[in-house]
């Protein structure tokens, strides 16, 4: 319907964005009727989303004309932004930004480097930045899930952890079951994506490749490659994140510093 009204691509895009926004606001209205107040979060997220993606789109137009090495800086900036976003989900965890940055940089960075070296990711900016950003975004989500789950687990088991410490256990050992639980939980989305590939969803990249004239079988296989890379990047990110966070949860004297709040004195 919109295509019949708007012949100009920019106007069509704005109209489509408007329709999508109205739908999101309708969902917000439904949530509000059920006393779930997400207005502020949803409106800010919608505004941020459109401003950020349009800004990035504009920058990409400039970058695509630049030399290939500029993609390294773009990906590094994306990692820093991803770490900042992820760290906000980890309130109360000391050094959350550092943990997030090192984990995402290691997880996504290593996979990008290895797969570019192997030839699975093209070094052209038009390929490296979109694929790299997918890996970084998924690593960010995994890192957020890891930190969030770890904090919840530790807060729910403070008594057991401190009892183990009080009996002479090492700090790493006391949180080891919660590290495992956080790692497993954080990888559920990546595993489910791989598991349901082609059955539940056909990802955007494959659709794009098909639209741009790639052979369907190659587009399908490459989508599998992308999701496998996402799984590897997510796994590495969560691994580093859990390794780092368990040291950040304790003081040098093996005291649990990640606690719900300082308990009232009794």
């Amino acid at each position, binding site marked *: 319907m919109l295509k019949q009204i708007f012949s100009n691509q920019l106007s069509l895009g704005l109209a489509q964005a408007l329709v999508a926004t109205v739908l999101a606001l309708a969902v917000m209205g439904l949530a509000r009727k059920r006393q779930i107040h997400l207005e502020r979060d949803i409106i800010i997220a919608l505004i941020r989303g459109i401003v950020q993606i349009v800004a990035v789109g504009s920058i990409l137009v400039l970058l695509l004309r630049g030399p290939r090495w500029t993609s390294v800086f773009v990906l590094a900036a994306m990692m820093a932004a991803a770490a900042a976003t992820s760290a906000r989900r980890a309130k109360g965890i000391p050094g959350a930004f550092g943990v997030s940055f090192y984990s995402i940089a290691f997880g996504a960075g290593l996979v990008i480097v290895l797969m570019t070296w192997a030839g699975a990711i093209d070094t052209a900016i038009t390929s490296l930045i979109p694929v790299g950003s997918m890996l970084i975004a998924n690593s960010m989500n995994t890192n957020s899930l890891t930190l969030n789950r770890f904090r919840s687990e530790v807060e729910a088991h403070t008594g057991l952890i*401190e009892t183990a410490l009080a*009996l002479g256990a090492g700090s790493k050992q006391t949180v080891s079951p919660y590290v495992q639980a956080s790692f497993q939980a954080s990888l559920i989305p990546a595993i489910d994506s791989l598991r349901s590939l082609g059955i539940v969803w056909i990802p955007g990249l494959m659709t794009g490749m098909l639209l741009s004239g790639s052979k369907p079988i190659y587009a399908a296989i490459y989508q599998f490659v992308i999701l496998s890379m996402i799984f590897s990047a997510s796994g590495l990110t969560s691994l580093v994140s859990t390794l780092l966070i368990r040291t950040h949860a304790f003081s040098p004297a*093996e005291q649990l510093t990640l606690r719900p709040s300082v308990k009232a004195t*009794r």
Partner: protein
Amino acid sequence: MKGKDPGRPAPWILETKHLSRMVSGKRLVDDISIQVERGDVVAVVGPSASGKSSFLRLVNRLDEPTAGTVYLEGEDYRDIPPRELRRQVSMMTQTAFLFPGTVADNLRFGPRQRGKDLSEESIAALLNQVGLADQARSDVSHLSGGEAQRVSLARALANSPLVLLLDEPTSALDDSSKQEVESLILRVVKQNALTCLMVTHDLAQASRVAGRILILKAGKITRMGSTKEILHAETNLQ
């Protein structure tokens, strides 16, 4: 001052010197200095939020003092590796917090941290002391509150501590279990001639268990003396 003073004998098994902890501008523990002799049972009594548990956590070094320190047999506890310190100063908490598994698994936990495997005989002896002689293989999820506290006491004793810290060990129990666990603690402490710091909000319980009483208010010591002296002073106040 850090380290063991070679010229200084260590008459006290445990000594706190100006021990303090401040969090977000609030003094939880304020300048507590006490000496505890070997075999002493000292009760730390006070109302809610008086800093009793915070004080005990500092002695076990689960929290870090913001001023002052603790000497264990004359040695500054900051010079003792935390794991070794916590073995020597064992703690029993208000809630038992048993690890999933059997009663025996829980008793083995402490010694296993330093590579020692507690023998079946030692487990039986410990469980016998706390009145759970035939429960070694019982799953902890099937225990009552009183039984769980007994296991918690046996688990703390399995570390052969120099000092036993008891943080309101009966306050989460029903009245009948409370009496049983209190009598048990009294018996075990006497049998093993244990040095003990026990936190309680109940002065009557303190007078039944301890030889000395320390009264805390807003993190500070307001009164300290023999049980007789404290009871006399508190009775006169009323």
